[in-house]
């Protein structure tokens, strides 16, 4: 027995030692927390490369005597103001996804980029020597400009990360409850050749406005040859005048998440020869759910949208996902398909916005659009198909969904139809009114009804240009040659 005890004791000691060996955990990870570095401004031969490592641009003026190079995502942080002098050239480095370059004004940040007609501010690609070395129609060479504000959205939750910026970057968040939020001023600004792929099917729009409030000023802005959309609105209620979107790879004007702003003198010109561009207007209401509030009901006067011609098969405008919106006194030209409004099995959808008075196309002229009749221009579309209880498709996708829906008692067939509104709202058709090279009608196009809202310029002509008058885009845009 004594032997057993001795053995037990010595064995326990051995075990104890083994156990202790196990307990000794190596502590080797005590790396010092590296302080986020200040934004780098590195100047070589009059070119200043800006690299943001987390602290934003700072409150600073980018002067016109230098060329400013955006190296990656450069943010104007909250409580910072970036002032850009008239005539300043800002260039974005090439690269896609995590290497994309863009200027992002965060919530609470301010931008003051005020150019003049003779001295616009130009945002372009690094490779652009402004000598014509890069064709007007070249797209996707850098990112774009993103402005994020505190105005409300209808997305769920009401605060989201803007497309393409990882959620770990908190400066990418936008949305709030201040609809009069002011992010600054953009005036006489030309944004060129942007729209690089920012990851997994997202691209940067030429000008992205996320939750921007009505206090912000946008006037005389050109977005040309952006690979993705020209201007995309995510909620908010910004107001924009004199906007030219040309040669963009996707949609010219795109809105989502409950955009409720105002617009006047909006031009869109697609790249017919290069074969690029999807819709002139892609107008979505909500996302999840699509019927979220506030509804998207922007008011637009005096748009001139010029498409890619009949053979490209593209559409003027799609209203869907419960989007509303009111186009007045506008010209739509040169496109295979007209304006389609989505109708769905659910009660609330874009089609319903018509009868609710939230979706209007009034006093507009359709020049060489979709066969030139009310029936061919104003269409209903049924996006998506659903299965019935036996797993069969409820609808046949080609067309003819409406009778099925009517049978399902989801649509009141007696409400004034979309097609009837064409004539009821004073819309008309014509041929050869405008073209991509000459968007100013020689004459006519003067049957609009003047806007009542005082923000709008009080005129009665249709389209973005005074018929027979001057083209306000000449002189400071790339499309109509500046320098």
């Amino acid at each position: 027995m004594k032997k057993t005890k001795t053995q037990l004791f010595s064995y326990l000691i051995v075990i104890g030692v083994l156990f202790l060996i196990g307990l000794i955990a190596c502590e080797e990870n005590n790396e010092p927390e590296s302080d986020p570095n200040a934004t780098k401004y590195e100047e070589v031969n009059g070119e200043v490369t800006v690299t943001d490592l987390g602290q934003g641009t700072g409150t600073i003026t980018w002067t016109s005597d230098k060329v400013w190079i955006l190296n990656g995502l450069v943010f104007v942080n909250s409580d910072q103001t970036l002032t850009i002098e008239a005539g300043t050239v800002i260039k974005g480095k090439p690269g896609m996804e995590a290497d994309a370059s863009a200027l992002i004004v965060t919530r609470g940040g301010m931008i003051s980029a005020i150019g003049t007609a003779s001295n616009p501010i130009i945002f372009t690609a690094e490779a652009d020597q402004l000598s014509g070395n890069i064709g007007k129609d070249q797209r996707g060479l850098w990112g774009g400009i993103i402005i994020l504000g505190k105005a409300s959205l209808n997305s769920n939750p009401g605060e989201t990360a803007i497309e393409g910026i990882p959620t770990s970057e908190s400066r990418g968040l936008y949305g709030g409850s201040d609809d009069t939020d002011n992010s600054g001023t953009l005036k006489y600004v030309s944004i060129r050749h942007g729209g690089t792929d920012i990851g997994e099917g997202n691209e940067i729009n030429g000008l992205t406005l996320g939750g921007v409030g009505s206090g912000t000023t946008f006037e005389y802005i050109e977005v040309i040859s952006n690979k993705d959309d020209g201007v995309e609105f995510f909620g908010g209620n910004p107001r924009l005048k004199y906007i030219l979107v040309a040669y963009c790879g996707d949609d010219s004007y795109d809105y989502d998440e409950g955009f409720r702003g105002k617009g006047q003198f909006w031009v869109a010109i697609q790249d017919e020869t290069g074969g690029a561009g999807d819709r002139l207007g892609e107008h979505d209401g909500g996302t999840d759910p699509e019927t979220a509030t506030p509804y998207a009901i922007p008011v637009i006067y005096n748009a001139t949208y010029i498409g890619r011609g009949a053979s490209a098969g593209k559409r003027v405008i799609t209203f869907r996902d419960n989007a509303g919106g009111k186009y007045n006194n506008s010209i739509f030209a040169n496109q295979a398909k007209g304006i389609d409004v989505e109708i769905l099995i659910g009660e609330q959808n874009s089609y319903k916005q018509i009868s609710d008075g939230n979706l209007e196309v009034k006093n507009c002229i359709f020049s060489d659009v979709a066969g030139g009749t009310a029936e061919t221009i104003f269409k209903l579309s049924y996006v998506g198909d659903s299965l019935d209880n036996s797993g069969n498709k409820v609808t046949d996708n080609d067309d003819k969904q409406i009778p099925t829906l009517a049978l399902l008692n989801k649509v009141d067939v007696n409400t004034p139809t979309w097609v009837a509104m064409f004539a009821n709202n004073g819309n008309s058709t014509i041929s050869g009114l405008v073209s991509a090279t000459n968007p100013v009608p020689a004459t006519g196009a003067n049957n609009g009804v003047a806007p009542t809202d005082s923000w709008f310029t009080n005129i009665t002509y249709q389209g973005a240009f005074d018929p027979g008058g001057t083209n306000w885009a000449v002189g400071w845009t790339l499309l109509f040659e500046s320098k």
Partner: protein
Amino acid sequence: MKITISTIISFVFILSGLQGYSQKGFLRGKIIDEKTGEELIGATVVVTGTTKGTITDFDGNYSLELDEGIYNFTCSYISYQTQNYQAIKIKADDVTIINIHLDEAQVALDEVYVVARASRRTEAALQVLQRRSSVVLDGISAQQISRLGDSDAAGALKRVTGVSVEGGKYIYVRGLSDRYSKTTLNGAEIPGLDPNRNTVQLDLFPSNIIENMVIHKTFSPDLPASFTGGHIDIITKDFPEKYTFQLSASFEFNPISHFNPDYLTYEGGKYDWLGIDDGIRSIPSEAEGQIPARFYDDYQLDLITKSFNKTMESEKKSSFMNQSYSFSVGNQLEIREKPLGYVIGLSYSNKYNFNDNGVTGRFKLIDGGDELLTSQLTLDTDKKGSNDVMWAVLANLNYKINNSHKIGLLLLHNHSGESSARYQAGEKSSDEAGMLYQTRTLQFLERGFSSIQLKGEDFFENVGKIKIDCLSSYTYSKQHEPDLRFFTNHYTLQGNSRLYEISQSLYPVPTRYYRFMDELNWDNKINSEKPFNLGSIDTKLKAGVSFVLKKREFREKKFNFNENSNSYNGDIISYLDDSNINASEGRLFVSNSETSDKKNSYNGYQRILGSYIMTELELTEKFRFVTGIRMENAYILTNSLKENEKEGILDNTDFLPSLNTIYSLQDNMNLRFSCNRTLARPSFRELAPYASLNFVGDFVFIGNANLKRTLIDNFDFRYEFFFKPGELFSFSAFYKQFINPIERTFNTEAANPELTLRNADEARIYGVEMEIRKNLEFVSWMKNLSFGANLTYVKSSVTVDPKELSLKREFDPGFPDKRVMFGQAPYIVNAYLNYTNDSLRLSSNISYNISGERLYLVNAVGIPDVFEQPRGQLDFNISKKLGEKFNVKFSVKNLLDTKYNQTYFYKNTTYIFESFISGRFYSISLSYLID
């Protein structure tokens, strides 16, 4: 590589020739305690009336070399009843096996005469293990695997109580997802090859190398603590008692997959038949460096774009049938008069799989009040062809230095290569009705690992009868996915003509991925065991330490193919042609993002130190009590190669107590109760900021550096009754509580839907399990039949992430705050019926298994979750011995041909997420067997 294989083959034949030289025969076997099942060390076996004999070693094994003839033997051990065996025939060059169960002596020391019955390592042996084990344990033996006709470990394991298999590879124990199971090879850690999973792919282990597989369902401190559902130990064949030789070939036919002229494939390399890429899928050397952006060096950019191979589309080619071949040889040799056991196994299989009946759908809810979901994508054409090649080489050598010391060396290399081509087409209605979508995926997945295991077992009889075993296992593994190609486009109809387009804003442009994962695993452990007699109580004290080191490198490179405008006209070949490559004109050019590649590439380092102490107390004859504690210190670091990305760091020291009690109601009837704490750690991939997607158009899945480890408290109760050898009835009940379980959720802040992982507050599961195995010999006409069935019923619930919940409740105010755990099946049923007729030398088996619907995908707001539907599988096989050494087997798998079906369910309507039918598999195999 061919040289290596032929060298191995000739080596094998040399070894197989060795057995012809001796003129003597052997008597071998194992002696165990009938009651406890423990091996008896130092028991004697002698030729009756002579001094010729031997004693058992510390594994209870004995081996006696004798001239040909007929002998009587006596087996004895102190305080046990002596057993006599009469007229045992020993043949030259042959081995007669007698496994002996000795009973403790009763009052009178009688001698017992036993009619000798040769018994191989069978499920009965596994059952002994099961009965004497201190933990709840289930298993499957080589014999059962061969009877059921399963070709790999994954197929075989799905027969075990509470086990289901997902995708032919991943094990779910008690319906708990693979996160909660752990697989070891002979007790050593082996790496999981799929970076998106935290478990081992079990299809990599061909059944001819497996001796048995044991599933521990409760924890004891000598096991690694990172399992909750089950710890699966794959035990390879090691010490054969006699010469065995097996060569078999089998051919399998499936009407959909084989000899089908529509089978999809794409051009591969010379060594695809070995599952090895010959370099045709490598990154072109031109594209290794930095790729210039347009307008910087367009000449160089064009050269790079042109350097990629042009195949991005599948081609039709007739497929062959499935073939598989296996070979193994084993024997004992005498080296310096001590036995050296060896087993060498080789296997090769080449399988074709095709189905063209797939349907893929994506749906969402437009508004909370809607009655129906709205389609976003309906791919009613879904064809996928894949060619899976798998081979394995195993050599296991064990040498008994003497009766107290044994060393073993295992060498194992597994390799698999899967080349697949998929074409999906249908309507992508999310953007516009009438938009017809086409996508093609070409993939090659090369997986493999090489493992060296060195182990020693020592018994120090004079030093307190301490037993020590140690193991050092070193494994290198890889999963390479070179040149994964996606090519997606859409078209709309305008009159009779198709307007083709590649739309970057709707789906990614043509893309090629190159992914390489390499991992090293080093597992070392020492276990010791010492018996004590504390008065009348037999006790055992066990202690050990372990050190596991794991290093992983994951690299991804991605290349996009862009254009300035759209020139795609529906012809992929002309689109990728050199004449269409011109960056300065804005035609096709390649681009990549070094920073994104860096972000998606990561290094992982994991170090786990474990130590334990436990004791086994046999308080009374009937009551055993096993308790102890394990300490694990784990340090895990995952860092992305991109600077400033958050590192995933886990550094925990956990104390994991365990208590197992076993009360023997009778010799063959136990009541067990156990409670213990275990854990589950996130994998490297889950901690890395790596974003990946399954196929074009699906949600991105991204890791989370903030994950914590999960602690689980487990409670198990089990009643088991082994009424006859090979027969049993058991009933278990269990309850598990999870603290911080890692669950899938939606990243609510992301602009586009993005899946990620979060630690939920808590989860609970509880369930019951039942198993019966029974011969039907009590009914005379059914005397050749036996049947078995097992059933597991589980309920689970986990709290839904509060952010996700609040969003989902805006849509659906009734959205429940709890859901089933990810991957958790509510029930699992396995059943089989065996027919064995020794006189006809015929055996047959019919088996069925099914598991209930499991959560497959947690979805975004407005999209119901996706569940995988139950899919009952009925298999049948029949085999017959021909002559002495041949065996022929015919089998049909998937007799019911049930649809593989993943679905959404919303307001009484079922919507298809993905479904296909795989068809029945008919196979015939012929084997030549000496044993």
